[in-house]
């Protein structure tokens, strides 16, 4: 019954869909998939504990919180509002357009960023929030949507342009995997075949952000 281990996947899908306590859902999902696939309880604890300790680098962003906290206390948002007010016609959508373009170009040159930690939370989101406020106060939902879109702008640029750099880990992984599967491919042809994806994605983002701006504007005019 090797399909039983998919029960753990079911737990996580249902748990997230129902909005149950996320931390508990994740740990229970791990417990379920381990136990039904024949891993005993103590081994499960060992795998869980080791997995967590080995993945501590995922949480390295906590180190940036004191800096963000201090500049937030000292008027980061106010300064962002002042700055955006000086530049005419800068909307959240246009800020996202510019950011995603920079992100894709950076990817082309092999510059890898941890954009969410380095740029989105400390810089792009406060600017977009300020730009959104130019036409009037934002609702709580709109504030959340701008945050979400800011994070999305980073992910779009990062994912679809990542393979534009010949030395990126994903291109190397594709090449080595295809070689071991018996269908070797050239790294530079991977890059060429990725180009249309990066361009189409950017064009879609332009339209998508434009609609976002229109919606925000409409809500304020009413």
């Amino acid at each position, binding site marked *: 019954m090797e399909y039983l281990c998919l029960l753990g996947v079911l737990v996580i899908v249902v748990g997230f869909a129902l909005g149950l306590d996320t931390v508990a859902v994740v740990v229970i999902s791990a417990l379920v998939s381990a136990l039904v696939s024949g891993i005993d309880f103590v081994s499960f604890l060992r795998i869980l504990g080791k997995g967590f300790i080995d993945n501590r680098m995922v949480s390295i962003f906590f180190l940036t919180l*004191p800096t963000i906290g201090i500049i937030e206390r000292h008027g980061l948002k106010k300064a962002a509002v002042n700055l955006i007010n000086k530049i005419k016609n800068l909307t959240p959508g246009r800020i996202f357009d510019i950011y995603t373009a920079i992100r894709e170009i950076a990817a082309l040159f092999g510059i890898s960023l941890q954009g969410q930690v380095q740029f989105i939370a400390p810089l792009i989101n406060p600017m977009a929030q300020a730009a959104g406020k130019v036409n009037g106060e934002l609702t709580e939902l709109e504030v959340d949507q701008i945050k979400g879109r800011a994070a999305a702008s980073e992910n779009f640029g990062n994912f679809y342009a990542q393979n534009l750099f010949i030395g990126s880990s994903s291109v190397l992984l594709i090449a080595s995997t295809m070689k071991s599967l018996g269908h070797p491919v050239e790294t530079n042809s991977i890059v060429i075949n990725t180009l249309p994806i990066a361009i189409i994605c950017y064009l879609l983002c332009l339209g998508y952000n434009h609609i976002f701006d229109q919606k925000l504007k409409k809500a304020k005019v009413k």
Partner: protein
Amino acid sequence: MEAIINNFLLAFYIIIGLFFLAAAIESWRDQTNPARWGTGLFWLIFAALFALGQWLPSEVSGGLLLVIALLSLFKQVRVGHIKELSEKVASETVSRIGNWIFLPSILLAIIALVIAQFTKLGGQVGIGIAAVISLIVAMILTKSNIKVAYEDTQRMVRSVGSAGILPQLLATLGVVFTASGVGQATSKAISGLFPVGNHLLGVILYCVAMALFTAIMGNAFAAFAVITAGIGIPFVIAQGGSPVVVAALGMTAGYCGTLLTPMAANFNTLPVALMEMKDPLGVIKQQYPIALIMLLVHIILMYFLAF
């Protein structure tokens, strides 16, 4: 080099452990929080896992995570009361230093970038060193003392809360999924259901399976080898599809799935915590229209370019 990187990371984990200890102490001191003991314990356990994790037996770490899950399940973890920031301090500082307030953010970004790009220390160490330097600059710039830094550290950690630790927990879940054989089971289930031979069906199957499996595992890299071997090669390449087109587009088809899943914690869950968003799926909600259109684009491109 690797030893140096590991020493750096170890030092960073100990510092993060101290942050969590501060959050534990301040949670205990927060009399207004009905769950202050549970919340304090929650942060204390994380403090131990980060600062001492290197030396704890794995079974103990795993057991501590179960305690965390129980605390969270029984609603014993709450943010509690967090002091409002003073409007006055903000206006005063901004009128004094103006746009220099952005300097720490910009330094954070650039120093991390330079270290990742021009040294062999890597991105994680880059973030850590950049965080330390930008903190010192921020403290000098805003004339903040250690007390303010402590206050803001515990305030930020507590308000980010359990959402901040979720990315790492999800990464851990990925490890358990791998150990349980979730990968093979998924690939087998998909390839067992469909006939081989139709070009379009093969392309759709491969792209959708890449996205779906990536969404489940939260990681396109993990999906790529399994799904390409299980579906991409028999259903598309063996039918005459160009391997390079299939491989290149297959990986980015997987990224369509990354955009749709909370399992891709670094990308979709971390920003929720960092920006303290109300909706835990707020990032994914902004991403799904583009992700679905891009998946369709992948299918069309692969069908026409590969054959």
